[in-house]
Structures are given as C-alpha cells and as structure tokens.
C-alpha cells in the first residue's frame, strides 16, 4: 500500500464517497423523473379532456376523428387478461412452491430452480410469438369460432410468464416459516399435508399474498404479449374469446404510429401511462408493506 499525505488522502476518500452517493441517488432521480414526466403531460391532457369524459364514456377512440376518451375498455382489457393469467399461475405457482420446499428431494430442486429461472428470463416477445402462433391455433381446436387475436391466449401466455415468479416468491415465503411451527403441528398429530395446510400456509400467508399482488402488478404491466396476441381493439367486454386492448398495448399502438409531438393523441399516451403507473405502484407498495410485516412476524 502506498503511503500518501494525510490531507490529500482524506480528500480522495471524500470524493469517492460523494461519487458513490450520487450513484445511489440516481434511483431517487429516476423516480422523480418518471412522476414528473407523467404528471406534466397528463396535466396537458386533462386541460382538454375532463375526468368525467374519461370515466363516464364507454368508448376509447382517441386516434379516430370521432374522439371518445372512456378509459373503461382499456381497464377491462387489462383486468381480463391479468385475471386469466393469475387464475392459473397463482394456484399452479403455489403448488410448485409447496412441492419444491416440502416434498422435493435435493436433486429435483437443483434441476427445477434453474429451469424456473430460465422460464422467468425468456423475453416477453417470445411468449407473444408463442401465444399468437402456438396457443391460439391450439385453442381454435376447442373454440373454432375464435379469431386469431383474443384475450384468452394472451392471458395464458402471460400466466406461463408469471408462473416462475409466483413460484419462487411463494417458496421464499414458505421457507421463512420456522421449523418449530411444523414440529408443533406434527406433535399435535397432523399428517404432512395437514401440517402444510394448517401450519405452513397460514404461517406464510403474508408472503404468499405479497407474491400474488406482485404477480398481479407484473401482469398489469406486461406489454408485448398483449400487444402481439390480444389484438389492439379497445372493446368493452369480458369475453375471453374476443380481442381486447390493454393499457400497455395502447401505449405500444400509439408509439408505433407516428403521432406528432404535442397533439391530444400524444398526450393520451401519458394519461394512460400515468394510470398504469399509479396502478402498478399501488400494488407494489401494498405488496412491499405486507412482506415487511410478515418478515417481522418471525423475528
């Protein structure tokens, strides 16, 4: 180690600490940036379109000549695809998590974990391709009247995408349940499955809820699958066999067309993004709060 003068030495240390501090405050800056960008442009949108126009209309046609700004078709599309995705990725993820943490042997676990990680790392455009050109043709055997763009296949692909996250987050939650709880259940004469249903799942319920909410946030924010396979048509219905448009797919649709900067159509982009941001943010905050609370439970 080279010995340097004491005063210059301190200065260097301070400079480094400041550089590192700037690095870490960048995340605060990003957060502020997102909120600022979305707020400024949304305000411009709401100067021209009132909130009641958005909430009381049932048609969303800002890109047409006859403009309507009812947000419900986009909300319904988002909820429908997310609900389809969650309706099977949540139970399946939970079962996988229980199996992996309570039943699987070390060997199975060693294979399963990287596979789940790989599934989680696959780009969403691949799932979009899979939904459009694999799941939809398969589903058309069952529902011959179904078109090539529909909410169901997009929802299924999204569920497959979410599954690894749901499974690994619930497994983390199950892992934190202390051994004493399990042994207590066994001591009371419970069988293994009774022990799981009576002690492990109630013990991990906070973490599992957090996992479900986080999966929901992921589903709401998912973009490419729905943009490719759900058909970008803002129709207000809850029929999974029909095409829908989600909030994220609308953002993609506007970005694809060359909408001139500063027009009303351009501002709708930010209003929709603001809604999406608030929705996912709320879900994330709730999920984090639940996770914090359940972590403290066993300390």
């Amino acid at each position, binding site marked *: *180690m080279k010995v340097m003068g004491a005063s210059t*030495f301190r200065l*260097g240390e301070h400079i480094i*600490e400041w550089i*590192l*501090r700037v*690095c*870490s405050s*960048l*995340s605060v800056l*990003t*957060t502020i*940036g*997102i909120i600022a*960008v979305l707020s400024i*442009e949304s305000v411009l949108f709401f100067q021209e379109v009132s909130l009641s126009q958005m909430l009381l209309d049932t048609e969303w046609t800002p890109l047409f000549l006859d403009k309507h700004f009812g947000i419900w078709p986009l909300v319904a599309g988002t909820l429908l695809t997310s609900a389809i995705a969650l309706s099977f990725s949540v139970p*399946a993820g939970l*079962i*996988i998590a229980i*199996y992996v943490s309570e*039943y699987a042997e070390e060997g199975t676990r060693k294979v*399963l974990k990287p*596979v*789940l*990680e*790989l*599934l989680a*790392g*696959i*780009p*969403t*455009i*691949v*799932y979009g*391709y*899979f939904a459009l*050109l*694999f799941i939809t043709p398969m589903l058309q055997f069952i529902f011959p009247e179904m078109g090539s763009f529909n909410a169901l296949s997009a929802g299924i692909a999204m569920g*497959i995408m979410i599954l690894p996250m749901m499974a690994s987050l619930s497994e983390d939650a199950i892992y934190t349940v202390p051994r004493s709880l399990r042994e207590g259940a*066994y001591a009371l*004469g*419970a*069988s*293994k*499955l009774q022990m799981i249903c009576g002690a492990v799942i109630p013990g991990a319920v906070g973490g599992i809820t957090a996992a479900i909410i986080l999966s929901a*946030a*992921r589903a*709401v*924010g998912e*973009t*490419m699958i729905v943009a490719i396979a759900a058909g970008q048509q803002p129709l207000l219905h809850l029929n999974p066999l029909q095409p829908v448009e989600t909030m994220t797919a609308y*953002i993609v649709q506007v*970005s*694809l067309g060359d909408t001139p900067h500063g027009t009303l159509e351009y501002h709708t*982009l930010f209003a929709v993004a603001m809604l999406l*941001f608030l929705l*996912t*943010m709320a879900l*994330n905050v709730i999920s*984090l709060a639940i996770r914090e609370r359940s972590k403290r439970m066993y300390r």
Partner: protein
Amino acid sequence: MEATTISDPRSHTSRAWAPAKKRPLLARPVTERIFLLLARGIISLALLTLVALIADVAMDGMERLTWNFFVNFPSRKAENAGILAAWTGSLWLLLLTIMIALPIGVGAAVYLEEYGRRSFGTKVIEVCIANLAGVPSVIYGILGLQVFVRALSFERSLLSGALTLALLVLPIIIMASREALRTVPKGYREGALALGATKWQTTWTQVLPVAIPGIATGCILAFSRAIGETAPLITLGALTYVAQVPDSVFSPFTALPIQAFNWLSRPQPEFHTNAAAAITVLLAFMIMLNIVAILIRNRYQKRQR
C-alpha cells in the same frame, strides 16, 4: 420417489394416533397422493411448456437460419430479409448498457452496503429502488422518450436506447450486488481496517474482489433481460426501417426483439418465419448468458464451502 414420500414415517405415526372416524379428508394419504400427482403434473407441464416454447420457435425459424440471414438487411421480400442491423444493434445496446449501468449500479450498491448509515436519506433511496424494480418497462420507455429523445435531444439513437435500458436494469443490478456484498464476511473488512487501510482501500482491495462472482451472476442475468426487452425501445420510437450497421452511439438503431416484433406484426406467414428465426438467435444468446451465470454461481458456491 413417490413411495418414499408417501410412506414418510411421520405420517404413519400421525395416522395411528388420529381418531379413525373424525379424520378429515386431508388426513388421508389418498389426498396426499392426489396432491403429489397434481404437483408433479404441473411441474412436468411447466417443463414441457419450456421445451415446447423453444422447440416451436426453433423449428419454425430453422429454415431461415442461413448465413445470408445474418448478413442481410431487412427487405420487402421475406426470404431476402436478414438481421444484420438487428444483431449489431443489439450487441451495441448490450455493451453500452453494461458500460453505463454496471459502474453506477455497483457504486450504488457499495454506497448502500458499505458507506450508508441508517438515515432518512438511505431509507428513501431503498424505497425508490424497491419501487422502481416493479415499474413496468413501457413506463421506462416513456421516461426515455421525454428525457433522452426529446429533452436532451439524443434523438432515437443507440445512446437513448442504452440509457433507457440502463435505468431499467439498475434496480436489479443494485439489488443483486448488495446481496453479493452482504455475503462477504465481516472479518475481511475488520482485518483491512485494523491494518490501517481506509474505507475505500478496504472496499476496493478486500470486499469487492470477494463479491465479484456474486455480482457477475446477478448482472449477467440483468443484462440478459435487457437485450430481450422490446417494449421500452418501441416506446422510444425505435421501430423504424434501419438498413445500416451502427457506427457511433448517435446512430439510429434497431434490435433483435424489435425486428422480431416488426416481422411478427405482419400478416404474411413468411415474415412469421423470419420472426421465429430472429427469436431463435435471441434465445440462443440468452440461454448462453444464463448458462455462464449458472456456471459462475456453481463454481463460486463450491469455493465457499
């Protein structure tokens, strides 16, 4: 395996103790058997899906995966179209994103783990990072559009794309690096400090070298996510016809996932074949990155023991 799990000694004892008639449905080994069958079924289905996903895309795209596909620019005719602009763009994006996000992310992690005192400021930073990790990627695209493309007028260049992707992966890198730094035993730091090293000397010469494998694993996974991202780049407005290999950070660009999306959104099936081929290339690259990450982790875990 099935037999061993079901004849688990504990479940036998418990069955002997439980009153014969009042035993609820769940107590019966049959339910357990059903559960195990269900669980194995679901897991096999998940594995099968992974295989189907990769096999489907690879088989659809195989016929187009020739040398010409890699050295041609996009074209009106599907069989002449190639991914030269796309793969060079993706490579540039990847390298730029690494160059931007890696030092900042690791720096932030070092600050939070080694320097940060429990203060209101660090608490705010932590909350922001946790929330940013959950923000949908399209929103980052919109941020990039307003800040990098318009306000800083980098236009729809590689630099805008890389900066946007860097912001997107930053929370993941910070969290992975913090995790890696946390595994470094306290004694390393205390030893160095006791010898008179300063805080930074301790971090740079003792802590970081030990944490590097962990940081590398996390970062490779984060960057492999970055090259697969489509939505933020589309929001930036990167979906345009590009027939040039980028030569500077200010070049307009396209990338593999964008090119695949472009081809996928056309009605003709020949272009879908092109999309499948482009996706196969992307997947092959990502799986390679993932394997490298897993290898590094396994090696590191062995050394720890």
